[in-house]
């Protein structure tokens, strides 16, 4: 083992004395490696000091704290609010869940998901929601099965807070009867877009507070009517942009308020989906019906002219059609009922940018696009009637007063993730479920810091990832897409929360304690006008402008 030529005694010196005594040799050899530890400590302290100095300098430059948005305070329980849900499709059910009423079917599915994957926290998140002290008093749907599901949901015993409602909700086929009822204080409107304005106006007349899904209205003139009616009333109106509750948006707003990006001249927002479901082509079995979110146990539960009040459903739609399952389940594909990519998905992003930057209504809009992928020619088994809303859509909004262009770019046939990007002279901010701010190499503001090596342009200047210590079992591509967009879950105090729950709670808090909801009629109106401008530009093939005096798109 040892080379005899260089063998020297390198052992502990045999010391036969009873009392241990350390020779100089022992001390020198025994402590031989301790200087390395001292070197380590010296370098560690040097590195820590350098890192924290850099961080402090950057943070003070940014005027930022690493603090996450505050944990929502639970106020004292107050009087019971009796809710009515109008339109208990998948979104109606999702908003009701946010209010604390999940359907038995959803609970069963969430349980299954937890059993299959213990990382799935859907059920846990739902059950740890705050009990909002509500009664689900009425459910209105023109489709019997969905209405009955809504009624069954009202007495579901799996609830946050554990209090089970004793009386089931009353069922209504006609929303007018629900609005006329004295035992309803506030309504959630989750019908297709073509009904939003009419029901909102009637709800204002009936004196009910309103939570309405986006897009606020189907047409521009409806938006004016709704705005005027809600403004004249003292009712609380919340538009259902639940991403307003996303903690990353609040952080992003702070960045803009502190002018960290410099002048932002370009904001790019996108939609990227690549599945029939994502393009609203929900599966329909031609002899039966099964949409993405609801499976029906028996044939009696399927939509038929008997179980579905088709005339009532068509209601204010501009064109009448005979009973048509495709139009019923995939209504987003036609302008008769929906607002296309503009009102359905651009609206989310527009509202997010409006929340972060207070943009308001744009001066002009130009949009283009087409139906390039989801055609019945390409999908003869899936699609029987072609859509009239585009599946590829781009819109450009100009804000000359702010020196800014907002670009929206959407494809429903490619899922490459492109985030919400705010491009400033000094830095770029990308916002999703979290956010990153990356300095621009040509920045004027950070020039000296970049030269001194305090700011590295290859790395984010600031990043915020809520719940990074927490692990989520996000499974499907669409779920991941929504998570990136911050639409499914957000975090408060490191705890995962459904933003729909926070958004509903915000509305209820305003009803109980006063104040304006986060996405009130002003923001709702700005969203509606911007979306209708883009739609009109697309349909007329020209650039349109907003006339704020006449309140008209010209």
């Amino acid at each position, binding site marked *: *083992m*040892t*080379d005899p030529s*260089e*063998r*020297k*005694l*390198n*052992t*502990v010196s045999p*010391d036969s004395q009873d009392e*241990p005594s*350390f020779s100089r040799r*022992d001390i020198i*050899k*025994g*402590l*031989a*490696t*301790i200087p*390395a*530890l001292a070197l*380590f400590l010296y370098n*560690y302290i040097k590195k*820590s000091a350098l890192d924290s100095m850099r961080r402090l300098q950057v943070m003070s430059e940014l005027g930022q704290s690493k603090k996450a948005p505050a944990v929502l305070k639970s106020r004292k329980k107050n009087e019971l609010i009796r809710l009515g849900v109008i339109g208990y499709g998948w979104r109606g059910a999702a908003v009701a869940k946010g209010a604390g009423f999940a359907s038995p079917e959803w609970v069963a599915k969430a349980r299954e998901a937890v059993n299959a994957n*213990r*990382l799935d926290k859907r059920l846990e998140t739902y059950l740890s929601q705050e009990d909002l002290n509500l009664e689900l008093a009425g459910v209105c749907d023109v489709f019997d099965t969905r209405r009955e599901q809504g009624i069954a949901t009202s007495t579901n015993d799996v609830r946050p807070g554990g209090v089970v409602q004793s009386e089931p909700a009353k069922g209504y086929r006609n929303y007018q009867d629900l609005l006329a009822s004295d035992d309803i204080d506030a309504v959630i409107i989750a019908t297709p877009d073509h009904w939003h304005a009419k029901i909102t106006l009637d709800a204002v007349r009936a004196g009910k507070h309103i939570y309405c899904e986006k897009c606020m209205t189907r047409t521009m003139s409806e938006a004016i009517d709704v705005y005027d009616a809600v403004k004249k009333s003292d009712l609380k109106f919340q538009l259902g942009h639940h991403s307003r509750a996303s903690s990353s948006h609040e952080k992003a707003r702070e960045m803009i308020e502190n002018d960290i990006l410099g002048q932002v001249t370009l904001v790019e927002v996108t939609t990227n989906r690549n599945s029939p479901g994502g393009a609203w082509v929900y599966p329909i079995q031609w002899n039966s019906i099964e949409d993405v979110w609801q499976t029906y146990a028996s044939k009696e539960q399927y939509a038929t002219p008997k179980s579905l009040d088709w005339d009532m459903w068509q209601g204010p739609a501009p064109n009448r059609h005979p009973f048509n399952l495709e139009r019923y389940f995939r209504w987003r594909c036609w302008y008769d009922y929906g607002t296309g990519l503009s009102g359905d998905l651009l609206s989310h992003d527009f509202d997010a940018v409006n929340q972060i930057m207070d943009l308001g209504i744009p001066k002009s809009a130009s949009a283009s696009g087409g139906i390039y992928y989801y055609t019945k020619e390409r999908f003869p088994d899936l699609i029987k009637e072609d859509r009239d809303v585009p599946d590829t859509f781009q819109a450009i909004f100009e804000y000359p007063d702010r020196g800014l262009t907002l670009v929206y770019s959407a494809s429903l046939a490619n899922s490459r993730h492109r985030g919400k990007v705010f491009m400033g002279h000094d830095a770029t901010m990308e916002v999703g479920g979290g956010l990153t701010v990356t300095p621009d190499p040509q920045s004027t503001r950070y020039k000296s810091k970049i030269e001194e090596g305090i700011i590295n342009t290859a790395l984010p200047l600031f990043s915020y990832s809520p719940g*990074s*210590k927490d*692990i989520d079992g996000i499974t499907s591509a669409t779920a991941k897409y929504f998570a990136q967009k911050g639409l499914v879950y957000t975090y408060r105090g490191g705890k995962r929360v459904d933003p729909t729950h926070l958004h509903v709670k915000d509305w209820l808090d305003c009803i109980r304690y006063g104040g304006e909801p986060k996405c009130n009629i002003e923001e709702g109106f700005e969203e509606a006008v911007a979306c209708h401008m883009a739609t009109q530009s697309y349909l007329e093939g020209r650039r349109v402008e907003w006339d704020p005096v006449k309140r008209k798109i010209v």
Partner: protein
Amino acid sequence: MDEIVSKMCWLKYFCCLHLLIILTTLSFSFPSISYVIKQGLIMSSKSEPLSSEYSNSQLIGLSLLRVLIGWHFLYEGVAKLSNPHWSSAAFLLDTKWALSGIANSLVSNPSTLNIVDHLNMWGLTAIGLSLMCGLFSRWGSLAGALLLLLYYLFHPPLVGLEYSKPTEGSYLLIDKNLVEACALFVLAKFPTGHITGLDRFLQRLRR
């Protein structure tokens, strides 16, 4: 689907066999390695004499190796301790091959994940200190080798396995974790703490 699963199982066994063959071939083809392994086996079966005689250059080499590995462990531990956002979850979730089930169950329970995180942070720090100071250095070496072996087994660089976290090098079956684990095994069998470390005083006090 079943077919794919059974194919994957076969692939696992195949990879395992492959690894064993390579390690055995390596150990026989390099006399020094086989000597080290044999010596290690002999030493571990005996009462392991501590007063091994090393030449100066051997002592310097072994002590330096101990300090360098200790440094690496200590900084890995301290860096994790000083980062409030650090968690082993991302590493564990990216686990492939035989231990992926265990890793998943560790992650799925916040309290076990917390224990794993703390064991890692403090374990790395303690092993680092032990190696650098030469205090309980044989135990430190063995514990370090075991920890590295676990890291290796949670992320084995086998053919056909892809990890979402990019590695800093290119590896085929053997990675730096395995090499460092092997070096620590050698250090456990050729200890220096009792000569150039605090173990020297401990030994004297015991005597």
